[in-house]
């Protein structure tokens, strides 16, 4: 019994909160980017590629210019450029957004691998002491160990992400801009009739999601870690898409989805270090998302049937 307690206290302690937030934040930015575009009915599957490009731009700029602010700016600009290309391909050149997204993901992996070799002469990963990371937030709690573990030593964009969830929720649900954006996604014809330029809105929203994707990449390479690794997103963009679906394109519920992903991730690695098969824990978020999606759609269908029979 003591052994079990010991194991439980090893797995579940205050640092689990931290590692959950730490693991969830890169996914959170991807989720918010997808939430924005999904509200305009664009499935931004290329967020993974945007993040990889941005992460590379951030590391390169931070290394050469010696400033994380410039790195972040470069990442955002890169994200916007890639997103603008995707928007052009989808809206102007009539490409399927799904194909464009997958193409951009592939391009990002191949091109950053290529640029990594050309610029730094390394393959696989690049880390160097000259890469300036993002600052970490530290407060003085007078040596209180619990508060220290819970609230100290966060990378700058970890708390910013949480604030952004609420900002985005406010913009989407409480402002005119948000209402118009959602109307573009819900019924483009009605939106067009109401005088909203649907194509322009979609383009605009893609650019904003490029900004968020850029931040996601910069955070991944300068905040979450301090290097660039080939394919360093490792599916986090897809997880962002999944969390967006989990939350039904609502930023708040999307955030909850990210926290579940982050929680399972940190729990999995802890259990693995104890010699348990972590794979089943790591599976949980994906299974949960599928189940939640299915339940949501079942409920929707039942509501529709009920409405029909009432008529």
């Amino acid at each position, binding site marked *: 019994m003591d052994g079990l307690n010991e194991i439980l206290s090893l797995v579940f302690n205050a640092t689990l909160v931290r590692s959950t937030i730490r693991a969830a934040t890169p996914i959170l930015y991807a989720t918010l980017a997808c939430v924005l575009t999904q509200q305009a009915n664009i*499935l931004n*599957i290329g967020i993974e590629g945007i993040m990889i490009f941005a992460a590379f731009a951030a590391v390169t700029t931070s290394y050469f210019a010696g400033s994380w602010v410039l790195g972040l700016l470069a990442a955002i600009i890169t994200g916007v450029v890639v997103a603008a290309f995707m928007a052009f*391909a989808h809206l*102007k*050149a*009539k*490409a*399927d957004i*799904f*194909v*464009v997204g*997958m*193409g*951009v993901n*592939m*391009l990002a*992996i*191949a*091109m950053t*691998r*290529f640029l990594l*070799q*050309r610029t730094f002469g390394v393959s696989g990963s690049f880390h160097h002491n000259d890469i300036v990371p993002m600052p970490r937030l530290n407060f003085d709690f007078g040596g209180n160990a619990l508060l220290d573990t819970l609230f100290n030593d966060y990378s700058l964009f970890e708390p910013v992400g949480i604030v952004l969830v609420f900002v985005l929720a406010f913009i989407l649900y409480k402002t005119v801009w948000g209402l118009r954006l959602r109307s573009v996604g819900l019924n483009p014809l009605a939106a067009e009739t109401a005088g909203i330029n649907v194509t322009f809105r979609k383009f605009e929203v893609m650019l904003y999601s490029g900004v968020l994707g850029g931040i996601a990449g910069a955070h991944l390479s300068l905040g979450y870690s301090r290097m660039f690794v080939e394919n360093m997103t490792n*599916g986090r963009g*897809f997880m962002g*898409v*999944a969390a967006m*679906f989990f939350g039904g394109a609502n930023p708040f519920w999307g955030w909850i989805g990210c926290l579940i992903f982050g929680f399972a991730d940190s729990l999995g690695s802890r259990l693995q270090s104890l010699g348990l*098969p972590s*794979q*089943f824990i*790591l*599976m949980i978020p*994906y*299974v949960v*998302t*599928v189940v939640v*999606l*299915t339940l949501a*759609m*079942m409920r929707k*269908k039942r509501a529709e049937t009920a409405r029909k029979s009432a008529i």
Partner: protein
Amino acid sequence: MYKTSWGSTLMTIILSLALGAGAILLLGYDPIEAYYQLFRGAFVGKFNIGGVMERFVPLMLTALAFAVSAKVAVFNVGVEGELYLGAIAAAWAGYAFTGLHPLVHIPLCFAVAMVASGAWGAIPGALKAYWKVNEVCVTILMNYVAIYFTSYLVGNPFSARASIPRTPTIEESARLLRILRPSRANIGLFVALGVLVLVWWMLYHTNWGYKLRHVGQNPFFSEYVGIPPKKVMIWGMILSGAIGGLAGAIEVMGIHGHFLDNFSPGIAFDGMLASLIAKNDIRMVPVLSLFLAVLKTGALGMERFTGVPKTLIDTIIAVFILLAAMEGLFAYSRRRSARSSGEEAA
């Protein structure tokens, strides 16, 4: 809408190769020499041709799997997961059954793999058919579940207790005969081509295939004329999953000889892109898969002999896919040139 013209595909290929040549020139290499070495690296010598075939088989099968699902209007992004499940099922059937004749053992392995991954493919199919759950999302998520599940199996019950996580080596009777030695190409190539022809014949020359395409184009009308759209959609997904599983089985039985944890570097995603460029046209699937396989194999030779990095070829492939996707791009410029020529005439 789902029609490709040979002309536009060819034009995209030429344009992307030209862009690649530009990039090679910028890097200070000779593009003609680079492309010459690329095609030498793909076509000269048994080893190189075998290398192309080795890559072609899984690419073509996964592309076919995607194209079949697209026929019932489902985007099956989960072929990667099906590939993994098929691979581990075939590996298990390959080492667990002993003393069988190859003519029994090989079909048995194929069958086990196809049943496992077909059943896996049925799940998103059923969710989409009955409750309209977004299949792109579900299949992406299920890929992770499948890969973690195989990773668990290969680490625990199916482990060979070797230094790397892999299953025991399969019996000799489950091995696919190698052709074109010393490459790892094998008779899986003929299996794959046979499946391609069979699927094409089934889709376009049988009642069942007609129903499948019918449902993909208009499920409401299918329901009206008495074709059950939900069931047909699920069957389409089962077929798609089974083809994906077959690709995994051939990888294990012909190339590796055992299931290796995380063995696929996104093969099915490349296959999916090949199918997407082909606009899910079954006749174009082998052509584009072969093209991608040639580029990927030849890139190695090109890197060895000219120093042009092979990652550049991956970049060119991605550009090619993006260009091919932007069908409006050429139409746009054509319309503009038509207008300008009209102005000249006036």
